[in-house]
Each structure stands twice: as structure tokens, then as C-alpha cells.
């Protein structure tokens, strides 16, 4: 009886743990490039394994710029931006760096050409009549700076000094 109770408690605890985990836990993913697996989510942590490009992995949890993954018997941490979620699919968009650079070096004088509409269907936007009432409603929910600061404290958020970064990661020059 006690044994059965214990087993039930363990089951309840396991289910609770699964429910408490982030919604994307236990996703599949794959490595974009050759990637180190570390024992902890830090660059200088112990090296557990080296994964070649396009290794399928199970993603357990994200912590900052790292994801905890499982591959075979190995469980450890890899750089989040060395992974993509889902399965490698040659028909999907080419996400390689070369492709990204080619895309981003297109002449930038032309805005992206598209028939799509950002945020709602094209039909919605075409049919739109200006709605001052909705904008007034939007303005009524505005939060003053003091309220935002209180909200930050409640969320244990502490403001940091961080410079804007350029495309290569170097800091932008601060405006005087």
C-alpha cells in the first residue's frame, strides 16, 4: 500500500515537472554547424562531445544563449544559435550563412516586394476604414514611466548598461 502510494506520488511529481517545463521542452532540433557539447552552459565548461553539422538532437530546455540537449547517451549544453528546431529539410529555406549574406547584400534601395500584409490579412487592410476609436482605446492603456519601473522591480528586472551592436558585433559609437 505504502509502496503504491509512493509510486503514485512519484507519478504526480513527474507529471507536475513535465507541466512546469517550458512549452517547447522535448523538441527535436539539429546542429547547423560543427558544435561542442559542454557539461554546463558556459564557454569554459568541460567539453563532453563534438557534434558534426546536421546532427539530430533532442532539445530539453533553454537557458540564456544555451540549450540543453540529448544525443544518444550524451546530455549537455550547446550554443543556442548553433541549433535550429525541427528537422533538417532541404526544401525549407536555406539558412546557411552564405545564403544569408547573399540575401542581405541585395540592393537595399528597393523595399521588400510582396503582396502580403504585416499583421493581418491583405483583405483586412484593403478594407480598413480609419478607426479613431480604436486608437483612443490603445492610448487609454498607456503606462507611465513610474509604473513601468515598478513592474520591472516586481519582475526582478535590473536595468543594465549595454551598447548597441553593429552587424559584426562591435559596439556602435554612442551618440553625444
Amino acid at each position, binding site marked *: 500500500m505504502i509502496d503504491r502510494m509512493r509510486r503514485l506520488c512519484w507519478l504526480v511529481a513527474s507529471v507536475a515537472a513535465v507541466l512546469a517545463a517550458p512549452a517547447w521542452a522535448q523538441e527535436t532540433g539539429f546542429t547547423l554547424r560543427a558544435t561542442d557539447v559542454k557539461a554546463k552552459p558556459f564557454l569554459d565548461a568541460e567539453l563532453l562531445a563534438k557534434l558534426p553539422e546536421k546532427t539530430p538532437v533532442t532539445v530539453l530546455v533553454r537557458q*540564456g*544563449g544555451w540549450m540543453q540537449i540529448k544525443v544518444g547517451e550524451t546530455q549537455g549544453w550547446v550554443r543556442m544559435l548553433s541549433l535550429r528546431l525541427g528537422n533538417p529539410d532541404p526544401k525549407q529555406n536555406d539558412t546557411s550563412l552564405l545564403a*544569408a549574406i547573399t540575401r542581405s547584400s541585395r540592393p537595399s534601395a528597393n523595399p521588400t516586394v510582396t503582396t502580403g*500584409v504585416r499583421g493581418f490579412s491583405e483583405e483586412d487592410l484593403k478594407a480598413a476604414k480609419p478607426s479613431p476609436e480604436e486608437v483612443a482605446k490603445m492610448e487609454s492603456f498607456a503606462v507611465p514611466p513610474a509604473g*513601468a519601473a515598478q513592474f520591472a522591480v516586481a519582475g526582478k*528586472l535590473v536595468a543594465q548598461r549595454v551598447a548597441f551592436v553593429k552587424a559584426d558585433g562591435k559596439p556602435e559609437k554612442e551618440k553625444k
Partner: protein
Amino acid sequence: MNARFAVAAMLAACCLLAGCAPEQTAAFMKNVGGVEGLVRNIKDASGTIDEPREIELGHGMMETLLGARPLVPDAEVQRYVNFVGAWVAAQSDRPGLPWRFAVNDSDHVNAFAAPGGYVIVTKGMINTLHSEAELAGVLGHEIGHVIRKHHLAALRKGAFMNLLGAGAAAGAAGKSSGELVQALVGPTKDLYSRGLDKDDEFEADRVGIVLAARAGYDPYGLPAALQTLAKIKADDPYLALLFKTHPNPGARLDQLALAMGAGFDRFQGSPQNADRFRYATRNLRPPQ
């Protein structure tokens, strides 16, 4: 110049004779100058547009954008996105703008901004996010478009200017007191169906991660949101439009990998506030 003044004066006189209140007349006069002044301002090669006009412009564009899809009728979530957004925007170099945030009632996954501090995220976008840090990153990206004036840059490009100019002429000749809004309807629809410049999107991503980090969040919220988007099939109808107006999420992640390097590792362990996010947005999620 004299002719324009004469027309404005004549219209104002008509308005007075028709029994408008003096405030309405003043607003009308301001709008006549407003539209034409706006066109002049945006056309200005030096790219200067004063802040009151920028806010007026954004307000006018927002009337059309919210005319397309209204706010979700959930005061709690509206207030919540304003708390997160106001805190993130306070870390920008334009903290004094009248920042306004809203969730609109659309299942499409997207977010967009208008000049002067207006930001909308769709209900569909909220439902793909997992934490407040991800929301902060998405709002940070939109705040980036506003503080770097990307919409104004897009408006300055030919087609929009002609539309705005035509709207302004129609407005000045018309009888409506909302001619600024009317003049903006065409350019707004045009701009938001074309999207912004690709490089401006990449820049807004970099601003987004930095603002989230400054606000004390885990700066990897925006990349995490992009990873979610990257695994959704490109032919999903609710995402097709976002994909058409933006570089694909994979390209954006590659650019962020270059820009972030290991430079944001010092924020490892910063809050994601997933619980607060899930609670505040619980009524938007479809029943399981």
C-alpha cells in the same frame, strides 16, 4: 504660397459660417498645414521631421492599421504589454516618446510599429511566444524601427511620397477635418503591405536584443522567438505574410549569431519571466 493661404482661409471661413467651434477651426487650420507641412518635412533631403509631426503621422497611420483589426477586448493583456513595452522603451535613446502598445485581434503571427511610438503585436504572435523575455525581444525589435525611424525612411521613397502628396492635395481641397488621416490611408496600406527594407529588419533585431538586455531580460528572447518561427513551415497561411515582408527567420538568426557572438553571455541567468507572461496572456490562448 499666397494662393494656398487664401484657400485655407476661405475654407476656414466656410467652416466658421457653418457654425464650427473655434477649436475645430483651429484643428482644421492645423491639419491643412499639417498634411502639406508633413509632405514638405518628409521630402526634406536632410531627413528631419520634428517629433510632434512624427507622432501625428504615426497616430494617423495607426487609425488605418487598427481599422483593419481592432484590439483584443482584454484590458489585462493590453495593460500587460504596455508595462513590458514601456519598460523596454525606457531603455532606448528616445524614452520621452509617448509609447503605446497593443495586442490586436488577429490570428496572423506578426508585430508592427508606426512612427512616434506606436507598437502592435497580434494575438497570433502572443500565442507563439513562451515568456516575457521573448515578448520583450519582439517589442524591442519594433521599438528599434521607431527609434531608428525606418518607416520615415520608407515613406521618403518615391511611390509613397506621390501617394501622400496626392492625399494632401485631396485633403486640402476637401471639406473633411480628418484629412491628415485620409491622406495617410493609401500610403499606410501600401507601406504595411510591402514591408520595410531588409537591412532595417536586421538592424531592428540588433536593437531588440540590446534593449531587452538593458531592460534586465535574458537577451536571447528574440532569437528564441525566431527559432520558433523558423521551424514553422513557410507555407503556413498565418505566417506566409510575415515571411514575405521579412528576411526569413533563419537568415535573421544567422545575423544575430554574428552580432551577439559571446558578447551577451554575461547576462546568462537573467529573468525570462515565463510564469508572469503565461498568466497575463492566459485568456488569449485557444482552449486546449
